[in-house]
């Protein structure tokens, strides 16, 4: 069992609506999709939900979105219980599902207008809001196209706009960046930062960890339907990690020569320095080790042009948690 973080802000209602989940469990027959999930997502912050396929991310999102009833545990969205008061939660909550379904023959604008009306906006308000959102997600040019002809990325942006129709305080985004081109990804990142700065709570799940890393403030790790305790995440983050070293070298000398130089400067064997195409990979125990290593390389006159962690913080923690399920007992 992982430790439960202290519950904060559980009963805050109003502008600061956070997500508070304690001991949530849900099975489908014999499949235990979510076994024990406890976390807090704070207003004004973007919280990443990280976990491998089948770790229960989507099931958890569905329970938060008031679509699925947990078998046990408690959920509060802005202090409101989605089981007893689904209507209250739905007012607060914008949900963007991982599989985008838009009525195929309705136009992008009609999808947003209809959704607005389902949130009790008047026809006029719903139209105004739809146009606003089409501009926001850069779909104004496609406003009159049927949802069927939109590309995957465009549908994804339409789904995001739909989740924002009623100006929700809490946003649940399931794989929002999949199918987006780089420009749209940057736009999404900027938008999410802005929405968080407005005091909204944003929970976002993604497989693309490097991308998540650029936007999240906090991360919740999900393994086999359980949230991983913060101490275990911290432990994973401080474990040995690989750094990418790029040496500016004469192409005629080849990677092997650079590898020998680096190994010599660091006082390691050739076997301890890996290579990845034209880059070299060196493991350091912690940040201090990396600093010392870089000093040594520069001091030895190795022409370093790039020295950076080979994987991002999230990815490092994630991969480390993944390979170490056997050690779980020692951390718990």
């Amino acid at each position: 069992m992982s430790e439960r973080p202290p519950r904060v802000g559980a009963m805050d209602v109003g502008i600061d609506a956070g997500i508070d989940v304690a001991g949530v469990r849900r099975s489908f027959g014999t499949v235990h999709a979510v076994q024990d999930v406890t976390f807090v997502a704070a207003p004004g912050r973007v919280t990443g939900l990280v976990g491998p396929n089948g770790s229960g991310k989507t099931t958890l999102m569905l329970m938060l979105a008031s679509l699925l009833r947990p078998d046990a545990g408690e959920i509060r969205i802005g202090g409101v219980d989605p089981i007893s008061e689904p209507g209250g939660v739905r007012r607060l909550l914008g949900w963007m599902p991982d599989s985008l379904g838009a009525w195929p023959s309705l136009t992008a604008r009609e999808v947003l207008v209809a959704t607005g009306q389902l949130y009790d906006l008047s026809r006029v308000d719903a139209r105004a809001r739809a146009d606003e959102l089409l501009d926001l997600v850069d779909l104004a040019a496609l406003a009159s196209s049927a949802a069927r002809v939109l590309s995957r990325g465009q549908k994804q942006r339409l789904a995001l706009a739909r989740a924002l129709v009623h100006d929700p305080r809490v946003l649940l985004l399931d794989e929002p960046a999949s199918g987006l081109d780089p420009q749209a990804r940057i736009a999404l990142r900027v938008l999410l930062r802005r929405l968080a700065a407005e005091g909204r709570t944003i929970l976002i799940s993604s497989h693309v960890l490097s991308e998540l890393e650029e936007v999240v403030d906090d991360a919740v790790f999900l393994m086999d339907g359980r949230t991983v305790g913060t101490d275990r995440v911290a432990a994973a983050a401080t474990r040995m990690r690989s750094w990418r070293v790029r040496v500016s070298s004469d192409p005629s000398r080849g990677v092997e020569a650079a590898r020998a130089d680096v190994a010599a400067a660091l006082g390691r064997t050739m076997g301890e320095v890996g290579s990845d195409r034209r880059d070299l990979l060196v493991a350091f125990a912690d940040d201090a080790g990396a600093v010392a290593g870089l000093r040594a390389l520069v001091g030895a006159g190795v022409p370093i042009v790039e020295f950076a962690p080979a994987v991002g913080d999230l990815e490092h923690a994630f991969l480390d948690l993944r390979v170490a399920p056997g050690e779980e007992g020692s951390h718990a």
Partner: protein
Amino acid sequence: MSLRRLRTIIGIELRQRVRSVGWYVLLGIFAVILIGILALSFASFALGSGGNEWFFSLVIMLVLLLVLLVSPTLSGSAVNGDRDAATLAPVQVTLVSTAEIVIGKFLAAWISGLAFLVVALPFLVIATAAGELSPAAIATSLGILVLEVGVVAAVGVGFSAVIARPIFSVASTYLVVAALTIGTLIAFGLGGLALRSEQVSITRDIGWDAVPPGCEPGLLNQADECPIYDELPCVENSYVSEVPRFDRVWWVLAANPFVILADATPPTYVGGYPQDLFSQIAYGVRAAQKVPETETRYDGCDAPAVSPSLTPEDQVEGTAPSWFVGLLLQLLIAGGLLAWGIARTGTPAKRLPPGTRIA
């Protein structure tokens, strides 16, 4: 229940239907079939020489048949089809309630079914003009058609919310339609025959055994010793037989859409005999309500009385109209399925239909 949200749900459904090509193809095929029926009917019923009342009732029956065949496809995948297309969950997270979703879809399916009646309307008008039927008959039969479309729409939407896979829910809707149209007939026939009761037949007749040899009571110039009819004794015989009890199962047949249509339409009798197909069917169903007598008597000794010959109109006299019993039964099935569908689609969902993802 918010009217605006309900209207939005109906609007989403109808807009999608109106924009699909398949919808117009279906309406076109429907119109072509009706033209064929009308042409055939005009050819087979010689106008002016009677039988025109049968003509209208036949055409409206065929319209009912076609509508019953088309309606399940319009409604049978309303909810689970949306779930498959992942468009259901985004609606469920809005403020709209499950009841509003299911009822909105039901009303949308009903309205699209009525589009077929609108296509059929000119044909019905022609048939009516040719058939010279009373306005009351036309209004009633149209009203029943509208209700029947609604019942099938409710059954279809209900099943689509209960059963996970669209093909199975459409098939189930067809099975219910088949059960109501053909199944009731079979149940009525078999049920009536299975529930038999004994009937005692008592006959009194002249004791022919008492006639001496050589005598023939019918002859005029017979010998004095031969008895005449009045002198012959009367002998009573009784035997027991079993009769089917259709009076116990008539209500099964009452749930048949065609029977409802026929029975609800005011009957027309000419000289005591049914004047159109509706009245004919209604007579058949009403006659089934009669409890068979437990004892029948036939007296051959008395002078043969003029047996009161009852016309169908006389026989129907005093029987209960069955159409609202049948309609009530259908409304119960339809309403029950809708309520079940609403319960099964409710969120937050406790259990999901097997093999489905919520989103």
